[in-house]
């Protein structure tokens, strides 16, 4: 038996015993959060001042900052445009693994184009970038999972820009996940991150200069940017001194705030106010590239809200027509998927991009054969990997 179930069971009993207490506390915090949202719904300037004050104490503060819409707004989507080109991209990757027979990396990005009301089929593009030898290092540092993921994110947005240039406006582009580029900003990988960030900003600028709408769609978001804003608002002067550790609304989520099943703030298809993102990386996205977001109730039924966060750059926020078109397109894309709303084209981009284990094996074998044909030495895989690959009674392998 791989797990000590006696031990785990004891812990599960303890968890169960505390459930009612935790739920009561959570309900109180939720009521507090909802009240704070209502009371401060129209106080954008005051909220901004509070955020500025908190940032003085904690430069790493990450929260939402309101713009000009009420905090508790529920804004319906405009009519879907008659004509628009929609482009989605998604990527997957193979990370170099020293336990395998040969080390290589691969970034596979799938892009899919759909023209609204054209009656035409979609167009699909796949870019597969194989990385080998010196390409498996950045500034002398071996590519980590995070660095390959960084490369994937950059390639996704680059493909959107590349595909979008062939189409007249309006063009709406989106990827899965935040629009903000994530990666290690400290340590030995930092240089690679900032190099990628510069390229990424170049791509965003190209999209902006062509008037392309772009967004990142975060399904079931985990960040609680608006709740954090409410915590900042709630903080008394003495709390403000230690704002980083001040979490009176811990456990309350933005998803609940906007999509409470009993009383959802957002009606089906509606979006929230647009917020800017206050964070340490704010300075990395200046001017029209500044990062913003809104929440979207992608659910189609009154009592079954499904909240997603949609991240957008400033140039989309500043143009109400662009913002509205993105909103309408995303609602329509989610409706296509029926009972489990998620943008259809993002799912198709994922289907296009995903690399199966079989494909990974095929690439590996092609590489091994080519190297051997040219007289290069190829090692065996590690014995550790070989043992793991044995069939038989084994433990859970994530």
């Amino acid at each position, binding site marked *: 038996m791989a797990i000590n179930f006696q031990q785990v069971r004891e812990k599960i009993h303890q968890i169960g015993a505390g459930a009612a207490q935790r739920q009561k506390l959570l309900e109180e915090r939720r009521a507090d959060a909802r009240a704070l949202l209502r009371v401060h719904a129209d106080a954008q300037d005051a909220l901004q001042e509070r955020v500025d004050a908190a940032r003085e104490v904690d430069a790493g503060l990450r929260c939402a900052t309101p713009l000009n819409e009420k905090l508790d707004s529920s804004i319906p989507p405009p009519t879907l445009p008659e004509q628009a080109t929609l482009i989605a991209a998604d990527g997957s990757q193979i990370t170099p693994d020293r336990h395998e027979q040969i080390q290589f990396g691969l970034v596979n990005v799938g892009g899919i184009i*759909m023209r609204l009301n054209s*009656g035409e*089929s979609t167009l699909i593009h796949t870019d597969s970038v194989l990385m080998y030898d010196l390409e498996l290092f950045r500034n002398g540092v071996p590519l980590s999972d995070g660095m390959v993921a960084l490369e994937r994110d950059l390639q996704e947005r680059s493909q959107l820009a590349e595909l979008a240039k062939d189409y007249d406006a309006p063009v709406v582009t989106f990827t899965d996940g935040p629009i903000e580029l994530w990666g290690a900003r400290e340590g030995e990988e930092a240089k690679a991150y900032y190099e990628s960030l510069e390229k990424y900003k170049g791509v965003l600028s190209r999209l902006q200069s062509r008037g392309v709408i772009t967004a990142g769609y975060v399904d079931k978001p985990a960040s609680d940017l608006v709740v954090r804003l409410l915590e900042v608002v709630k903080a008394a002067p003495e709390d403000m001194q230690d704002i980083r550790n001040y979490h009176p609304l811990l456990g309350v989520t933005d998803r609940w705030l906007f999509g409470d099943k009993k009383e959802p703030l957002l009606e089906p298809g509606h979006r929230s106010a647009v917020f800017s993102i206050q964070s340490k990386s704010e300075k990395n996205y200046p001017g029209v590239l500044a990062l913003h977001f809104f929440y979207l109730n992608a659910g189609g039924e009154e009592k079954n809200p499904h909240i997603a966060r949609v991240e957008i750059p400033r140039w989309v926020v500043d143009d109400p027509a662009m913002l509205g078109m993105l909103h309408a397109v995303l609602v329509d894309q989610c409706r296509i998927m*029926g009972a489990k709303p998620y943008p*259809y084209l993002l799912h198709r981009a994922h289907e296009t991009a995903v690399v199966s284990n079989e494909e990974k094996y095929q690439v590996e074998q092609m590489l091994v054969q080519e190297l051997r044909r040219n007289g290069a030495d190829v090692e065996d895989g590690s014995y550790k990997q070989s043992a793991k690959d044995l069939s038989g009674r084994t433990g859970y392998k994530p």
Partner: protein
Amino acid sequence: MTQIEIGRLLRAGTTGFITGCSVSQFEAPSFGALVRAPLGGQHQVYGLIYDIHIDDDGLVRQLVTADNVSAEVMRDNRERRIVPVEMSVLAVGYEQDGRIYHLLPPRPPLSLDVIYLCDDKDIARFTEKFGYFRHILNSKETPVGELVAAHIQQASLAHDKESEKWKDAATREVITLLRDDYPTLMSVLGALSDVSG
């Protein structure tokens, strides 16, 4: 010989084979149609389509819960996604060096062999005699009555001016072969009467 390609072979046995095509190709083949699979040289296997099967997948199951499906989404699914139509084919004979045999083929076609729809000339040539009927009537997996009726209806058209004459002869042959199997005979004649009607 007209070359209407309907798909490629997925898997095969001596008594039949399964062919797959993407949905966009799915226009030519129909239930009961005679198809052929060239094996190279002067050899080819003939068969009748007795089942056309379209599998779903997770995305399709989800899309059917949506209020409506746009033309673009429909075409994307049919033309761009790998959801093959599977056609089951009953082997009914083969051709070797220009001669038709109503026997099981010496070997089945291989994976990815191209499968063609037979044109009128092929059909008329293969159905000159009725020896292949026994494969249909003895088959346990096929809807015998429906398959015979669909085949006779389609094949008779290939005989042009002799169409009615061929259909009568084919029906008489079926009656002769099933004279000791009353339930199946009734099933076949019932299906044939629907076709004639």
